[in-house]
Structures are given as structure tokens and as C-alpha cells.
């Protein structure tokens, strides 16, 4: 195991560099440039755009731009946003707390719902409970978030007028009110994301538990006279966790990448909305920074899940 880990750690650096090269090439080749808005404004001469392109080095060959980016990155310089003329790391750090809070709570919510519901549904397959849970789960992933989000807004903000639907990162209230306001405005985005994510996880948990629950050792455990609760929790769930850990691991980088559509609907100033604005404005340094961090996270978390597999199922050996 430790040898395996060591070897994997050695792979990390070349993997990350390789991914950064691919990312950069894709971004550089993709059509579009950061000065879309200048284009339709007749009062801005075309030379202005050409000069800006030249100033930001957009006309240089791709490999030169890559080396420039890489050189700066190694020295801790994340680059400079074309659109905001601000350092990219400031932009990202400004968005981080909100993203962690909203997306983090939604994933937590999804997990808290999906685990028990999935397990319960699998212990009584095709019972009424299972049917209801399945149907709700299906709605969760058959309806796109732009629909569920709007539906919630229409019901809770417009007809009932209970919740605000414009998310504000800085709330002027203090003390308990501050927490209350933050909680209130986070309810809808967290619910939308949690529902969407939790829905599919419920299905995976159900399926994983079903796979395990009929295995011999579970029957053995039961026949030893252990209580059903103990059997399920100790013997079934732990073994059914492998797919769940895989999926949660896959989704974790999303905390960083944000949930673009939901953030857009509720105006949550998270990394997702930063990324989409940057992409639409072809603000390459920002896109590059966000996706690069994302890919590092993917690699590290994949490694972590591999380690977790070994803990969940000690028989797994890495050859």
C-alpha cells in the first residue's frame, strides 16, 4: 500500500503538468476573445481591440504563452484577469467562502439524505417506501436545475414571499440576525443542488447495498443472531460504501468548481459564476487558474479515494 502510494505521488507532478498543457491548448485554440463588448460599440475604434490583444499577448504563439503562464505559476503568480484587471488569486479567494458554504452544505445535505434513504430502500426493495424514494429521486435528476430552481423561486419567493432569491455575500446585519439571514438565503440554492445530487446518490447507494445484502457473509451474520440494525450498519453499509466513496470523491472538486446553473439562478457569487463569466468573456487567466486547481484536486482526491478503498475493503491490494 505505502509503496503504491509513493509511486502514485511520483506520478502526480507529471500528470498535473500534462493536464495543464492540454488545458492551455484547448483554451488558446477555442474561439472567442475577451473584448466582445467593445466590438458592437461604434465609438471604440478597432485599433483599441487590436492593441489590447497585443498587450495581453493574445497574438503570440501558444507555446510561448504557455511557458509564460507556467513560469509565472511556478513562482506563485496566478496571472492577471483581462476583464477585471485584477490578480486572479484575489478573484478566486474572494469567491471561495461562499462557494464552500453553499456547495459544501448542499453536498452534505445530499449525503445525509442519500445514505439513509438509499440503505432503507435497499433493505426493503419494491416496498412503498422504496417506490416513493425512487420516484422522488427520478424527479431529482430528470428535472434540470434551471427548472427546479425557478419552481422554488416562484413558490417560496413570489407566491409565499418567505425567502429572498437574490443571494448576497455581505449582509450588514450582526449577531444572530447575520446567521439567520445567511441561512435563509442559502435554503433554496442548497435545496436545489442537494436534491439534484442526492437524487442520483440515493440510487447508487440503493444499488450498492442491494449488491451486498444478499451475500453469504451477511446471511451468516444474520444467522449468528445479530440484530438487523447491526447487520446492516456494520456488515452491509461498510462494504457498500465503495461506489459511494467513488462518487463523493468525484463530486468533491465540484465544491471548488461550483454549480454554474444554480449559482446563476440565485446569483450566488461563487466560483462557478466566476468561471462561467470568465469563459463567456474568454478571460483565459481566470479559466486557466480555476480549471488547473480543479484538475489538481481531481488527481489528489482520486488518490485519496484509492486509499479509502483499502480501508473499506482490506482485501484490496494494489499491484
Amino acid at each position: 500500500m505505502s509503496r503504491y502510494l509513493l509511486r502514485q505521488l511520483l506520478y502526480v507532478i507529471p500528470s498535473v503538468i500534462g493536464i495543464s498543457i492540454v488545458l492551455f491548448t484547448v483554451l488558446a485554440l477555442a474561439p472567442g476573445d475577451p473584448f466582445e463588448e467593445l466590438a458592437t460599440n461604434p465609438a471604440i475604434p478597432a485599433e483599441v481591440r487590436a492593441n489590447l490583444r497585443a498587450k495581453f499577448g493574445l497574438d503570440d504563439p501558444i507555446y510561448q504563452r504557455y511557458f509564460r503562464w507556467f513560469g509565472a505559476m511556478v513562482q506563485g503568480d496566478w496571472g492577471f484577469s483581462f476583464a477585471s484587471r485584477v490578480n486572479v488569486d484575489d478573484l478566486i479567494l474572494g469567491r471561495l467562502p461562499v462557494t464552500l458554504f453553499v456547495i459544501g452544505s448542499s453536498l452534505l445535505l445530499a449525503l445525509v439524505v442519500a445514505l439513509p434513504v438509499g440503505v432503507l430502500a435497499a433493505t426493503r426493495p419494491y416496498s412503498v417506501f422504496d417506490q416513493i424514494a425512487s420516484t422522488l429521486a427520478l424527479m431529482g435528476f430528470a428535472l434540470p436545475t434551471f427548472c427546479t430552481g425557478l419552481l422554488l423561486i416562484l413558490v417560496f419567493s413570489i407566491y409565499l414571499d418567505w425567502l429572498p432569491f437574490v443571494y448576497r455575500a455581505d449582509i450588514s446585519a450582526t449577531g444572530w440576525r447575520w446567521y439567520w439571514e445567511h441561512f435563509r438565503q442559502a435554503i433554496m440554492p442548497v435545496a436545489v443542488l442537494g436534491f439534484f445530487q442526492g437524487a442520483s446518490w440515493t440510487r447508487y447507494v440503493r444499488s450498492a447495498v442491494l449488491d451486498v445484502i444478499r451475500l453469504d457473509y451477511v446471511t451468516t451474520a444474520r444467522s449468528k443472531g445479530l440484530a438487523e440494525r447491526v447487520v446492516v450498519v456494520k456488515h452491509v453499509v461498510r462494504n457498500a460504501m465503495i461506489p459511494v466513496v467513488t462518487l463523493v470523491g468525484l463530486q468533491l472538486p465540484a465544491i471548488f468548481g461550483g454549480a454554474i446553473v444554480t449559482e446563476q439562478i440565485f446569483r450566488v457569487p461563487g466560483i462557478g459564476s466566476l468561471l462561467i463569466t470568465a469563459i463567456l468573456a474568454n478571460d483565459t487567466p481566470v479559466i486557466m487558474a480555476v480549471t488547473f486547481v480543479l484538475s489538481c484536486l481531481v488527481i489528489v482526491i482520486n488518490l485519496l479515494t484509492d486509499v479509502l478503498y483499502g480501508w473499506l475493503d482490506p482485501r484490496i491490494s494494489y499491484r
Partner: protein
Amino acid sequence: MNEHELRHLIAKVKRGALSRRGFIQRMVGLGLTAPLASQMLSYSGIAQAQAPSAYKPTKRGGGGALKVLWWQGATLLNPHFAVGTKDQEGSRIFYEPLVGWDNDGNMVPMLAAEIPTLQNGGLARDGKSVIWKLKKGVTWHDGMPFTADDVVFNWEYAADPATSTVSIGSYKDIKVVKLDSHTVRVEFPKPTPFWGDAFCSTRGMLIPKHLFDAYRGAKSRDAPTNLKPVGTGPYKFVDFKPGDMVRGVINTAYHEPNKPHFDSIEMKGGGDAVSAARAVLQTGEFDYAWNMQVEDEILLKLEDSGKGRAIITPGANIEHIQVNNTDPWTEVDGERSSAKTKHPLFGDAAVRRALNVLVDRGSVEKHIYGRTGIATANFLNNPPRFTSKNMKWEFNVDKANQLLDAAGWKRGSDGIRVKDGKKLKLVFQTSVNQPRQKTQAIIKQACQKAGIDLELKAVTAAVYFSSDVANPDTYLKFYTDLQMYTTTMTQPDPEVFMDQFCSWQIASKENKWQGRNPTRWKNDEYDKAWRAAENELDPVKRAALFIRMNDLVIENQVVIPVVYRPRVAAVSNRLRTSLSGWDNDLFNLRDWYREG
């Protein structure tokens, strides 16, 4: 009304026999007025009367928080780098120009003490210079005085190519001279009829010399004040999160008495236009939302909630269809749509004329844009003084069929017309935008009835309006037969607006597709008229030249105008705003207040 009569009227105003207001009203009645009618008077030596301010509050502050919603958040707060309107608006909270433009096209002094005229010696008779007197006693938010040095500095800063400002176009050809501590002279290289550009309105917002002096040229990106503006405006900077939130607090030392009304302002960004409208009109979470690009049908329904209303401000942005004059399907010397080619189908004027009557502008207005887009036959629609009365539009499928029949286009077995082996199949592109896709659908159906097959294409705006050379889908490359988008008119003067049909603006491989004329239409008469208008000091003759240019473009079906689009904002019932179609929404933020 001819030139002689007009001069007579102006003389009457001069003598005092006709009021200034009466003159402008008369001009409006004749379709001859607004922004430039007042400039007409300034050139004739008549001082501009200030429109009485509608501002009611009698003390500064006490209005609570003003919450405005911009569905595209400001990404930077230095007006000289403001890439889009959203950035200009964010900067406008803190910075002011010498003058703004109100909705009638009058200049409104902000940091100028008075409007330059011939009479007060502000304007030179030869049209080659303007003297601006600055308001005294104005201080920046940090307490430093505002002087002529700041004005001169802004010119130097913006005109320096190394700074890469967006406003460079307004400053690079002029010279600015400091006359005394509160007077500057702007000098033009040639007679300039429209002098209200530098230091005026959106590109005229002034930044303080003492904070930006050290950050000229290539160092400009390092200025801390790029993100923490220190201006002269009614609100002082508190906090800025790019793309998300701009916050300001009342400037208690503002240079006008009893202003501003609100104690703080917050501008939230992001989301989409429809939900922004909901936040103002349905829930009242916000007081004001900008640029309501929303189908009028939805807007009307939202207004029913009774919390607010849509305010529509006339402007001249024009949604139009461009007809390609060159062949987009043949590559010549490494470019398609090369100016050396001719379009294989549009060479026949009957096809262009048929298309012109197949655009159902009435339905587009009635069922898609409503109050937010008015059907028009003209490319140049506002100010009324420049609007041609000679052009008419109609929607007539039968006429299109007759035109095509007469020109020898016969229907094939599939219902599509053919002539000399060439099928009437056209590709029609636009940006991705729901009203545009619906307009496309309406036009496609009409064309089908006339035996023309349209293939619709929609390109993401970020790609369509970009300027990267390798990208084939940009509106300037125009590698399709027809395309549709909106050209904005940001000043109450059509000079820069109309240069997009000049032959030297033709987009080509040679100029890296930076030219502004994607139709690649070339017309000597048009070129000459534009050149003449550029230096014509007589406002009446100048207007006639622009009207002729408009008519040339329409008569030759270089473009088919669809609707011109006024600006629409959602405003809560109690908020009193001061808006203009010729300046930023927040241009007169100091006059905004909430009714008790």
C-alpha cells in the same frame, strides 16, 4: 422647413422673441430636435437653459439604502478601462464627467461650471476648440481639490497607447491645454461639429491625478485605485467584489446642496434579466434593475404585481439584418466573403427587394419586443432630427412572390425557387438570444411562403462578437448570406454610428477583420457624404447628409432594419429616477430619490 426658415427661427430665439424651450418644441414637432437641436442653438450663440431639476428632498441623506440590480456585474471600476456598460455604470457611482447628456440631448453640467457656447466664448467659431470652465470648490472623496490638472491628466492618461485604455478613441487626436487652475481648452485638429465627446458622458468620467499619476502607461494595472475608486460623485466607495457587488456610502461633502438622498447604495450583479425583473417588479427585493432584455409579454405580466413599473427611455440602438454583398461560400486569397467577389444571389436586386418585404417587422414588434423594440424602416432612428421621412416598410408575401416571378426565379419541385441552376437557399446567422431566434423563425416562415429556403444558425454571443482572427463565426467575418444583430448608438450624434457603411471600414483579411463594415458594401456617394458630414459645422446641412446616408443604405437594401430598441429599466413604484437614452443609467444618480 428649409434652411432659411430655420435660421430665421434661431434668430428669433437670439432676440428673445422665441423661447429656447419653444424652439426645441417646434423642432420636435418637425422631427428635427432633441440632443442636437440644443447644440444647434449653442453654435448659434444661445446659452443653454437648465431644465429645472425634479429633485424634491430638502436635506442630504436620510433615504436609506438604494439597492440596484445589474444582471451583468461590474468587473472593474476604472472608467478608462470600462469594457462594457456594466463597468461604466459601476464607475459612474463614484466618478463624474464634466457634463452628461440628458434625455432631451441637453448637456447637464456635472463638473463643468457652465456649458460652453459661442456666446460665453466657450466655443470657437472655426469649430476647432472648446474652452471648459470647471466647477470650483469640488473635492475628491479623499479631500483633495479637483482642478484643471486633473482634466489634463485624464487626457494624457487615456491617450497614452501604453495605458491601453478603452477611451483612447476620444482622446488620441485632441490636445488639452490648461488655461488656469479651473479652465482648460480642448483643441481639435480640424473643425469638429460634435465636440461633446472628450470629458463628456461615459468616456468622460474623470479620475484623480494625485492617485493615478504614478500609474501611467504599462504600470496602469498596478494602481490600487483601479479597484478602490476615489472620485467626486455623490457616493463614496466602500467595497467591490468583481462581477458581484459594488457598495458605496453617502458623500457628505458632495458639491451640490441637499444631495444625494440615499445613505448608501449597493449594486448587485449576476443572474439573468427575467429574474432581475422579478426581484424589482414582483418581490420588491430591489429598487431598480437595468437593461430589461425581457419579452414585453413577461414584463407586462410582472408589472401586474403592482410593486413597480418598466421605464422606457428612447434611444437609437438598431436591430437589423445585414445582406452580404460578397460571396461567403467561395474562398479568394485565403478569405471568404472577400470584397473582390460578388454575392451569387444578391446580385439580383429583386432578391434583395423581396427579402425586404418578407421581414414581418410589425409582428416582430407586436409579439416579441412589444414596447422594447419599435418596427422601423430606417437604420438611423434617433435623434428625430436625423430621422429620414422618406423610407417606408411593408410586409407583403405576394409582392415578394411577384418580384421573384418577374425576375425569372421559378419554383422547383421542392417549392424552392431556382434560376440559372442557382437555388434560393440562404444561411441566416445571429447570436444566441431568445428574441433573435424567434425573429429568425418568423422570417423563415415568410421566406418559405415566397420560395426562399433559410437555414438558421445561432452562434454564442461570446464567439459571435469576438475579434480573434482564427474564428470563422464572428459577425465581422460574416461567412453567411444574412446576419442580424444590434448596433448601439452611444452618443446623440450619428457620426461614428454611420461610419459602418464607409468603404474604408470594409472588414477584410488585410485589416484582420477589424473594419466595421461587414456587409462589404461600397458606394462613392455614401463615402463622400460621410466625409462631408465629418467637418460640416452647419447643423442643418449636416443632418441632411446623415439622412441621405440612411436613405442610400435602405434603398440599396444593404441592411434591412427590424426594430430600434429603446432602453428599458424596471423601477420600484416609489423610486424617482433620472434616466437618459444618451448616457449611462446612473448618469444623474445624484438626483435619484425615494418618495415618502
